[in-house]
């Protein structure tokens, strides 16, 4: 077994347990909600159609969006309950993932319950009435037993869906097997992706088989099968309940929660932050692979304590500013003030480097076309294709940039950032919106085009801290402050390349950086 694979397998118990927890609880909730709802719906055809329609609409919401939407929804709920009851609701992590997955599990179970009951032979229903069963007796003794195989098929469908979808809990801050997949894809660690996918598939098969065995045993009246399957399921549920209560009860010394968005640099930086927090003597927990605005929302409501964001991002997406100032220091000052006054968030340190959006081309192509600056691109753009990550084309920076230069490309393609670099290097697309600290710019021989009109705002990497952290953990904040100016762009690029190109782990790279820094400090 390769070392990379062994490293990944070491994480499996944690991720698998978390994944199982989410899946089982969501299924339990989904089933206990949907079966009664389905029974109710099958008694009232009109209301039933409404319920089924609503569940179908839920299903059409892309799963990642449904989960991600739970974060602002819970944050709003949290603000309301905080104001009225003094109770906070965590907006990232287990809760939004659980709610999203539960909603997703409703449709197959609800639908199959309705179909299963409707599918019972009308003659059998008439006989049940005629022998003197009450509505409730008919349901319990005749309709539910006969609909059971169909209902169970719905539960099995839901189980397989939820296992798969639970991998999307990672971006809302709940650890799952998705951690393997998200971080693996970003850091080009395919051993991780493989372990995540295989484990999720295996889990789906096991759950499906268990539910099937339970139903088959009940139908064939084979007590041994029923007891065995029920015992395994019960054991899984007991394990889930135990870890959950341990999480709630044993929650007393609250860990400092560090967030990371879904790209390599964020993994490295979160590892550096985590190390500093630990060095300051506080327990620490890293929540990786968060969606971009998910991280900020969670920081604002205190579910997250600390993460690294970028001044230009805050400027555009949080402050909703459309002007594009070029003065780094002025942006930092104004943003710091805004965050403190309007969001209760403290800028602890500017790390010393920028990670700005940058338009890149393959160096040989840029050279051949004589393109050095973005201005040079304007005339050629209508024949060219541009690739970007999922966000960029809908961000104000892109509107500002394309307006400032009058850029119109033949086609715009959104894709995963890790694929974007390969696409431009392979010549599949002509231009990409890269990140200026990305190690792949140098590795793939890409040329950064000069922003000669200053249309791209500054993107200073800044360490943000929640109000709670500033209030409760001054030593941690002091430790984080020492990171101010500690990383220059070249250092960050090298660290990113070490992960992306040399397949080293972000933690490893972070450790090396800190060791070197400590050594330099000691001299």
């Amino acid at each position, binding site marked *: 077994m390769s070392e990379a694979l062994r490293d990944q397998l070491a994480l499996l118990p944690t991720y698998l347990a978390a994944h199982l927890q989410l899946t089982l609880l969501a299924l339990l909730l989904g089933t206990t909600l949907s079966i009664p709802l389905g029974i109710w719906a099958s008694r009232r055809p009109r209301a039933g159609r409404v319920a089924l329609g609503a569940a179908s609409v839920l299903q059409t919401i892309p799963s990642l969006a449904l989960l991600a939407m739970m974060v602002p929804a819970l944050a709003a709920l949290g603000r309301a309950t905080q104001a009225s009851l003094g109770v906070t609701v965590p907006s990232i992590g287990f809760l939004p993932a659980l709610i999203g997955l539960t909603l997703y599990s409703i449709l197959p179970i609800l639908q199959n319950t309705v179909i299963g009951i409707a599918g019972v*032979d009308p*003659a*059998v*229903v*008439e*006989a*049940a*009435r*005629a*022998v*003197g*069963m*009450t509505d409730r*007796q008919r349901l319990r*003794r*005749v309709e539910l*037993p*006969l609909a059971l195989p169909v209902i169970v098929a719905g539960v099995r469908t839901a189980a397989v869906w939820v296992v798969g979808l639970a991998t999307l809990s990672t971006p809302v801050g709940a650890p799952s097997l998705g951690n393997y997949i998200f971080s693996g894809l970003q850091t080009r660690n395919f051993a991780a992706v493989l372990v995540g996918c295989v484990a999720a598939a295996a889990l789906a098969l096991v759950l499906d088989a268990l539910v099937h065995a339970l139903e088959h045993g009940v*139908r064939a009246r084979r007590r041994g099968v029923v007891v065995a399957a029920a015992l395994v399921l019960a054991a899984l549920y007991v394990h889930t309940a135990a870890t959950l209560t341990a999480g709630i009860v044993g929650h007393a010394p609250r860990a400092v929660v560090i967030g990371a968005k879904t790209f390599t640099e964020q993994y490295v930086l979160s590892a550096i932050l985590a190390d500093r927090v630990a060095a300051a003597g506080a327990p620490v927990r890293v929540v990786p692979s968060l969606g971009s605005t998910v991280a900020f929302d969670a920081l604002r409501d205190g579910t997250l304590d600390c993460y690294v964001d970028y001044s230009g991002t805050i400027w555009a997406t949080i402050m909703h500013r459309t002007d594009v100032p070029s003065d780094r220091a002025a942006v930092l000052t104004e943003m710091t003030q805004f965050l403190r006054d309007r969001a209760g968030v403290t800028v602890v340190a500017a790390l010393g480097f920028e990670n700005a959006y940058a338009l890149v081309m393959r160096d040989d192509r840029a050279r051949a076309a004589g393109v050095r600056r973005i201005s040079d691109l304007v005339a050629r753009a209508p024949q060219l294709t541009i690739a970007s990550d999922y966000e960029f084309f809908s961000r104000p920076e892109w509107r500002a940039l394309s307006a400032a230069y009058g850029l119109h490309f033949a086609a715009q393609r959104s894709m995963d950032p890790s694929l974007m670099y390969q696409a431009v290097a392979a010549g599949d697309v002509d231009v990409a919106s890269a990140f200026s600290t990305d190690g792949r710019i140098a590795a793939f021989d890409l040329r950064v085009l000069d922003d000669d009109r200053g249309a791209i705002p500054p993107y200073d990497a800044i360490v943000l801290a929640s109000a709670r952290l500033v209030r409760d953990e001054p030593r941690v904040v002091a430790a984080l402050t020492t990171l101010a100016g500690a990383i220059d762009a070249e250092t960050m690029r090298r660290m990113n390349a070490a992960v992306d190109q040399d397949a080293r782990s972000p933690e490893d790279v972070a450790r090396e950086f800190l060791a070197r820094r400590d050594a330099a400090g000691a001299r």
Partner: protein
Amino acid sequence: MIVLEQLTKRYGDAVVVDRLSLEVARGELLVLLGGSGSGKTTTLKMINRLVEPSAGRVLIDGADVTAVEPAALRRRIGYAFQQVGLFPHMTVAESVGITPALLGWEAARVAARIDTLLELVELDPATFRDRRPAELSGGQQQRVGVARALAAEPAVLLLDEPFGALDPLTRDRLQQSIISIRTKIGVTIVFVTHDMVEALLLGDRIAVLRDGRLVQLGTPAELLRRPADPYVAQLMETPLRHGRIVDALAGSQQD
């Protein structure tokens, strides 16, 4: 025993049963005879409230059937119908024992009753007790259906074309079974059929229905001799003509 008073059922503008009044005497077998759409099944189902009347009422032993909960009423009235509706997930014994179980009989009494009934409908208890409906022939299923209807010793038995889907020989055997069951237990039976021969064979009296109205009520002999209108005459003529044809054929064979 059973009294129907001005019994009426409307679905929207359609009148399915129209002011039907008749009486069934204790221990009598009354046949409701008519074509499809005559309202015979609807009439039957209003007796045990599978269908609620739009107007009029049903009395059993002088008491209005709406005075008790439908479920409680139906436990006192046996019901068997063409589609049988045996519970596919239950054994024969469980199906037959269902109404006694709902009434809270003791397990031993239920078990004894099941065996008695299976013998009554000419099914060997040891062979059939633990079978599932899927393992039974159509005739056997229908016998189990009748046994289920009789399980809780009802005073009234409602039968809705119970033998309609069976082959002629099986049907004949089951008709004989019904006659023998009647001699063993004095149950009052309302029997719905569209089959004239069956009506003539089984009925103490026959009520002929057409378009939801009672056309004629009388013994088989009265109906044959004095049909009230051309419709009844035509109904009665059919089996007689068939009989003559069969006789003639049989006669010519002997020549």
